[in-house]
């Protein structure tokens, strides 16, 4: 048993910067692969419902007749599955996490271009 073994660690901790970030004053660490939340480019979406079929939590709801694409952020487990199956690559993964919510909200409904016609009307609600 030697003495003052911890002194090294103590001195190191004393004279180095904190190991933690002052979040949210400083932004959290992110990488290019970080799965934050799903985003959609409404102009490219053809409402094929592939994402809805593959979603393991049934968070996505697509209505081809009404040309809407809807995601429930509270159901979504950010697994990247819909992004991988999307045939037109209109879905993408953003690295920013969605903010915490205090009510049961977080449903994002988007009017998309739809199956045939090309309507550039990406109105978010």
């Amino acid at each position: 048993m030697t003495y003052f073994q911890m002194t090294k660690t103590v001195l190191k901790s004393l004279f180095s910067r904190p190991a933690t970030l002052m979040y949210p004053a400083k932004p959290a660490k992110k990488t290019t692969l970080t799965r934050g939340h799903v985003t959609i480019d409404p102009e490219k979406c053809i409402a094929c419902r592939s994402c809805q079929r593959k979603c393991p939590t049934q968070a996505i709801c697509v209505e081809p007749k009404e040309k809407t694409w809807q995601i429930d952020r509270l159901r979504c487990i950010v697994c990247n599955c819909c992004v991988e199956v999307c045939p037109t690559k209109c879905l993408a993964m953003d690295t920013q996490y969605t903010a915490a919510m205090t009510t049961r909200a977080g449903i994002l409904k988007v009017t998309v271009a739809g199956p045939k016609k090309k309507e550039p009307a990406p109105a978010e609600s």
Partner: protein
Amino acid sequence: MSKQITVPFGPQHPVLPEPIHLDLVLEDERVVDAIPSIGYVHRGLEKLVEKREYPEYIYVAERICGICSYIHSNTYAQGIEKIMNIEVPERAQYLRTIWSEYSRLHSHLLWLGLFADGMGFESVFMNAWKLREHILDDLEVTTGGRVIQGVCKVGGVRRDITPEKLDEMVKGLKGMEPALHDLVNVFLKDSSVSHRLRGVGTLQKGDAYTLGAVGPTARGSGIGIDIRETGYAAYGKINFKPVVEHDGDCYARCAVRAKELFTSIDIIEQCVKKIPEGPVEIKVTGAPDGEYFARAEQPRGEVVHYIKGNGKRNLVRHRVRTPTFTNLPPLVTLLKGCELADVPVIVLSIDPCVGCAER
């Protein structure tokens, strides 16, 4: 005989943030019986397998546990691949091994921290988690998730790691080794920690075997069971020896986990040296028809996934037996006859993860 009293322990307890309740029957300060009850967080994940197609269910399988998440998805994928006779590309096998060992590293560091916190050694807890952060950073850079990686899929893995990144990862781990030695020495050599752990909660080799202990709990009692030796993923091509201690007390279980950190680093290093070029996934068509017991070594011990399919896209049955569940009978045996003050240390020494024990 003195009067018996019952003390409830958990699910809300400062040293045990796990959904398990233990009724401790005490005579004075001595525990004479412990009655565990689980069932606080049942989520019905196994039933969900009938409603989701088998390639998508892997996301659910991964979310069974929040610590050994990657190995759950790996085991599930292995089971499906065995039923469907899919030969996974070799590079994918090696990548699976690397990520498995990374999740073992982060789980063991988490446990060492929690264990130190459980006996009131808070600065070691902070240090262990500081080191764990480097492991999590590497996991996030390579997979996109810190604890839920989501990289394993039936037929391979989703993401590849570049050779430069692999070298950088090994360099990072090698650079961490001195700090890890400092941390591990606190557990193995410090006299006050030794006093707290030695001779506390001794599990005899015979008891460990008959009660079905797995993982570090069994290896701490001298039983050299390590499912990695069966050679799943790329473990068959790697040289390593399971860490076995013979004392069977809390110190031995702690020593097993502490020494396994270095085994894991060694395995990752060997994998990076041997990893071949090539594809990381193959296209999977059809559906599983048959049944299989897939086994893998988690940080806490052996996990078994039973998978049964009938040729349709949805499986018929999926059953998981997690290591914590099978470590509960040894825990009850350990608690009988110990002091009340030793209960937190003994319960933590089996590394309980009750959240995944009942799904």
